[in-house]
């Protein structure tokens, strides 16, 4: 018998479509985008996506697409782990579940039993929910900050479905709405024709090349992310720089020091909205779920401390991260624009 190696089907070889989702434009757009895909009709995405005995990491070899109709709630209050960036009306929504990338420290692999990607095609329902929340937000004098890329990297998907563009266009019609787009993508050029808007913050996660290679599988290299940031800043968009999580390993200080030198040298501080810095942290339940699947990543076999049911690195390591970033960034950006999540 022959031992097979690269025999996995390409990503999106199959598109699973909820019966109810067939009538939506986004469904048609998506199916047209992948004319060779096998279409399988399903009744309810949850019975497929949430089923037991799936293997997240094996499925990452051949990710399938699921097109579904989102049921309420369409908008969620921000959690303690998700940085609110100082916005008191801080919410997130989930236009897409799961990610094209496969960062080994990501909570999604503990949150979902499947690596397949769910796209919710009823964008209008999500927009209506945001409008409603805008009108009854807790702090009426403050804007509402909506993170649209919490359970995915939405911009990485932009060449497949222009969902980030839709949300930017939507935000531009609402005076009190701000949108944060978290990403590691280098696909900013797919949005570069849009006029810059102060309602939008693009949050780019940056890591040393070693972390990109070892921990952030399938993500664009550091240089391409920096180029995307440079383009966004040049066009006049606001950019948040995220160093989150800072991964601790032998010589991490040298690598992150070099990274910060490079950022200071190559990214114009003008239009840097703020900087967030964090360390590895994951809810204990998600962490245990990931660990039970015996991932190849070493991140789940390190010694962590547990604080309020969160697995994180030891206090002395958190202090070292804080010291390094404070010292390095002191002359680059004012201290009140640096947020530490640790």
């Amino acid at each position, binding site marked *: *018998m022959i031992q*097979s190696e690269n025999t*996995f089907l390409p990503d999106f070889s*199959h598109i699973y479509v909820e019966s109810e989702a067939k009538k939506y434009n986004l469904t048609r757009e998506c199916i047209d985008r992948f004319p060779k895909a096998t279409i*399988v009709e399903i009744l309810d995405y949850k*019975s497929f996506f949430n089923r*037991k005995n799936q293997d997240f990491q094996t*499925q990452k070899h*051949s990710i399938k697409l699921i097109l579904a109709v989102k049921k309420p709630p369409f908008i969620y209050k921000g959690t303690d782990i998700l940085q609110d960036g100082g916005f008191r009306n801080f919410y997130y929504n989930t236009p897409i579940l799961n990610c094209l990338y496969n960062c080994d420290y990501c909570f999604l692999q503990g949150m979902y039993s499947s690596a397949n990607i769910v796209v919710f095609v009823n964008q209008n329902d999500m927009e209506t929910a945001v409008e409603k929340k805008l009108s009854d937000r807790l702090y009426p004098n403050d804007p509402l900050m909506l993170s649209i890329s919490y359970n995915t990297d939405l911009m990485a998907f932009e060449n497949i479905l222009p969902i980030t563009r839709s949300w930017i266009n939507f935000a531009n019609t609402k005076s009190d709405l701000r949108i944060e787009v978290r990403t590691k993508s280098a696909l900013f050029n797919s949005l570069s024709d849009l006029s810059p808007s102060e309602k939008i913050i693009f949050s780019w996660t940056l890591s040393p090349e070693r972390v990109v290679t070892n921990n952030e599988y399938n993500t664009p290299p550091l240089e391409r992310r920096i180029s995307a940031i440079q383009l966004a800043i040049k066009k006049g968009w606001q950019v948040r720089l995220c160093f989150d999580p800072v991964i601790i390993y032998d010589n991490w200080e040298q690598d992150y020091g070099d990274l910060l030198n490079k950022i200071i040298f190559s990214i114009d501080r003008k239009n840097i909205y703020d900087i967030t810095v964090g360390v590895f942290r994951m809810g204990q339940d998600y962490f245990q779920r990931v660990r039970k699947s015996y991932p190849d990543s070493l991140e789940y*076999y390190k010694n962590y401390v547990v604080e309020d049911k969160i697995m994180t690195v030891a206090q002395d390591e958190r202090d070292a991260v804080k010291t390094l970033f404070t010292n390095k960034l002191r002359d680059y950006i004012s201290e009140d624009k640096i947020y530490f999540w640790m």
Partner: protein
Amino acid sequence: MNFLFFTALKVEAIPIIRRFNLKKDLKTQLFIYKNISLFITGVGKQKTKVRLKSIIDLKINWDETILINVGIAGGDINKTKIGSIYFINKIIDEETGNIFLPDPLIKHNLEEITLTTVLNSVSDDSSNYNGLVDMEASAIFESISSYIPCHRLVFLKIVSDYMDILDWKSIDAESLIQEQIENIYQVINCYNNQNLSNRIILNNLEINLLKKYSEKFKLTKTQSLQLISLSENYKKNNGSIDGLELYFKKIPKSKQERNKGFDTIRKYLST
């Protein structure tokens, strides 16, 4: 990888037995040769479910097993061709309405189609069914998917009729399967991929050794679980837990001594 074939009928099994030189093991009722085995489930959902219990009791190493259900099926006259083999991507249980979805991760050269599992054979009306019809697949999926992840469940069906046959004995199932045996062989070659097996850190020998250590030291349940977890960390980071043996040489005489000893082990494994 290990391959476990399921067929409903002996005549469906014969070409597979012949192709892979399988020999009957009287103890398990499986036909086996090296990493390939075959089990005959019988016809119909009920019989299949009962027979599958015996195979589940065999405590097969499911971690590296790929299940392949091969059988004949009725086909939609407009969409299928008699003698053709299809890869099933959706199974509908007609009785319950439940839908079962295999997880096709591996490239293959077969056409994909939906399969409906029915209670009684269909011989007069194919228009109600979209794709193929059989009598076992949903029962197999339902029973086995707790043991084998969906991406290692493969259903291959060969069209024997257009749901218009009254005399089932007139179908030459053996020849139909025989005609497709090389396609079946191709599929198992594609699935012979180590990336599909369950990932493990500690092997069975190591787990048994840790169990022995726990008993010898009379570790508490929490300590035993910690020992496994820390050993996984240690092996992942250092490649081997062989050095642990030294710490379990001397049997502790009291709880205090045990706890002290376990503390030393914990420190060793945390380095």
